[in-house]
């Protein structure tokens, strides 16, 4: 009952005119960045975070969450119309969305995507409201050892479930952590890793410099290479009859909606996963369970609904560990978490008691944002098609301008802009060679928090690492640590498993 009261407060908070205006503005920007090929939620949030410093944290998180949300809806637009995903989260939407557009049923695909997103978003935000308070209550009992163990598990999830090359994934995690140690040491006060004695390193490397570098500059270079500035668009006829028929087609997609909503939410909670794997898994499972699985890939609405439902659901799910545990569930929430620190908040369960307006304002705004994005999305489809016609050669320099100003604004030093360019270029090269970049961004955000938790734990235990593995003293920390170890060694058993079981069932 208490939850309902908080939730109503939160909804009223997000309906205050300033917050509501930012919410609608955020949804629009989100739809826009989602729809542009090459830009997704993570890019939008990374590039826009510097301009949220002047507004109150509650308004800022409502704005950025709306961008996150809108991007999940918007990604479908270019997946369907251009055949290239608007964001990595909408990759699976291309599989059936594009064939539908080629058949001349683009409107069906776009409506299915919007409604799927709405259902996924709504189901997940209800789950979120139910799960968040009890989880925060449990998390309140966590001390430094539990927090550190959770962070180790977050890193281990990348190794165990990320699916990328293991040494390269670990390298990415470690370089993010190493970069986060630059600057003054918290405990001894000594300067660390001040390269060439440049004073700019003394204040450390702001996570935003890496995030904007990788997701702004690096992503633009990547997209310039992929598209070479040119794309091909499908034809679209918009009339009410089409929309009506599209809604009719949705009856057959209820199973896809169920799978997408629930699977998406729980995959979203996992630290490494986020919306991209959630949408791919949802598509795969829906296809497997469907009666007409052979038609998937040739243009069925269920094939659009499944991934779209899941990516929205996962984006909400990934905010659950961010708010309750202070561990981000996706690259975008990693940046949001960094933003919370910059706004002067301490992420974690205490937020629920210390900053209820912030937490519940965010949760309330998700309900409202879902509704507005659905309406805006369907109403503005013609406008987004105009946006998609903007040549990439014009969009790219505008994004670069935003990156340069965004990299400069937080610390007001050109030193950070240079670093941002360097990270952008390095990130682009490394990504081309299959080094995953998301772990580095996650670990530069979590690095200082992890270091603090580790050193506090070691002070508690008089310097013994045993504190993390002691089942009788700290059972929760120990269980989490053992799970992390299992995740870390899992990839090593992958080939063994395949060798053992492949022989028994010849394919």
């Amino acid at each position, binding site marked *: 009952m208490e939850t309902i009261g908080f939730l109503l407060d939160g909804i009223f908070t997000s309906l205050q005119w300033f917050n509501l205006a930012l919410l609608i503005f955020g949804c629009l920007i989100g739809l826009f960045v989602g729809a542009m090929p090459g830009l997704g939620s993570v890019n939008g949030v990374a590039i826009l975070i510097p*301009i949220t410093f*002047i507004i109150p944290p509650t308004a800022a998180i409502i704005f950025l969450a709306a961008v996150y949300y809108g991007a999940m809806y918007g990604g479908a637009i270019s997946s369907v119309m251009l055949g290239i995903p608007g964001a990595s989260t909408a990759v699976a939407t291309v599989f059936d969305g594009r064939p539908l557009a080629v058949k001349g049923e683009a409107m069906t695909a776009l409506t299915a995507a919007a409604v799927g997103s709405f259902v996924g978003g709504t189901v997940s935000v209800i789950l979120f409201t139910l799960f968040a308070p009890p989880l925060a209550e449990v998390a309140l009992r966590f001390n430094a050892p539990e927090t550190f163990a959770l962070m180790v598990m977050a890193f281990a999830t990348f190794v165990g479930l990320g699916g990328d090359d293991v040494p390269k994934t670990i390298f990415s995690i470690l370089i993010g952590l190493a970069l986060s140690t630059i600057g003054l040491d918290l405990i*001894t006060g000594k300067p660390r*890793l001040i390269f060439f004695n440049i004073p700019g390193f003394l204040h450390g490397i702001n996570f935003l410099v890496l995030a904007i570098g990788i997701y702004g500059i690096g992503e633009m*270079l990547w997209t310039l*290479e992929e598209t070479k500035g040119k794309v091909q668009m499908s034809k679209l006829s918009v009339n009410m009859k089409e929309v009506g028929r599209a809604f009719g087609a949705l009856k057959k997609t209820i199973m896809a909606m169920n799978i997408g909503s629930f699977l998406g939410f729980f995959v979203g909670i996992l630290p490494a996963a986020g919306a991209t794997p959630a949408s791919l898994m949802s598509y795969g499972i829906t296809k497997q369970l469907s009666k007409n699985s052979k038609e998937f890939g040739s243009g069925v609405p269920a094939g659009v609904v499944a991934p779209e439902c899941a990516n929205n659901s996962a984006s909400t799910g990934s905010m659950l560990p961010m708010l309750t545990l202070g561990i981000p569930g996706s690259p975008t929430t990693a940046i949001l978490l960094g933003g919370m620190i910059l706004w002067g908040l301490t992420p974690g369960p205490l937020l629920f008691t210390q900053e209820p307006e912030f937490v519940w304002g965010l949760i309330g705004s998700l309900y409202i944002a879902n509704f507005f994005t659905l309406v805006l999305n369907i109403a503005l489809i013609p406008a987004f098609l105009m946006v998609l016609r*903007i040549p990439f050669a014009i969009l790219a320099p505008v994004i670069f301008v935003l990156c*340069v*100003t965004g990299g400069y604004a937080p610390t007001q030093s*050109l030193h950070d802009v240079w670093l941002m360019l360097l990270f952008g270029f390095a990130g682009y090269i490394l990504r081309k060679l299959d080094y995953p970049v998301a772990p580095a961004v996650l670990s530069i955000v979590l690095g200082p928090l992890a270091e603090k938790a580790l050193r506090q734990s070691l002070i508690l235990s008089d310097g013994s690492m045993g504190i993390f593995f002691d089942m009788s003293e700290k059972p929760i920390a120990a269980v989490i640590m053992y799970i992390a170890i299992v995740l870390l060694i899992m990839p090593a058993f992958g080939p063994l498993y395949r060798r053992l079981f492949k022989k028994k069932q010849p394919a």
Partner: protein
Amino acid sequence: MSITNKITVKRAEIAVAVILALCSIALMIKSAENRITWNAEENMGAGFLPFYLSLGMLICTILTIIKFVLKRSPQSKDDTPFIDAVAFKFIAVTIISLVVLVLAIGYLGIYFSLIFFLAFYLRYFSEKSVAFITIFAITTPILTFLFFEWMLKIPLPQGISEPLFYPVYDFMYGGFSFAVKMIFIILTVVLPTALVFLTTRFIK
């Protein structure tokens, strides 16, 4: 272009791995400037974490190199060019113009540098007319100025162009009425933005 053909994925993979290994070693040496030991009596030295993190990085790059030598990674068998010639032109010009932009920001200030950057970039990559590019290259810095300096109150670097902005600041913070400022904003923001939108639609 023969250079882009010579740089295969295979060569790029091993070159990057070796560079990363060298960087890791440099990081380890740099970390060792602080105490890197840790035991129960003394607390953790300031260099301990960076040192062992970069040692971990070194081990990872060595594993990548071993995988390369044993031909276990997909990149180690890939003889296709790392980047094709057309894309290389896009990337190279973009990176060079960004570096020049940031260099220019330090000297000329951001607003004038942006005009040159946008004019060059659009002229080089887009097929837009000179009229469009001129309007676009001038309005973007104006919007940037109003957004950062007026709305957010964040000063961006102005280099040697700073004196030119004094009259603007006098106007912004001077005793003009709200109405005068609004008319000014309409003239400087709304009109140019509308112009840009119209030109994107009608001027090629």
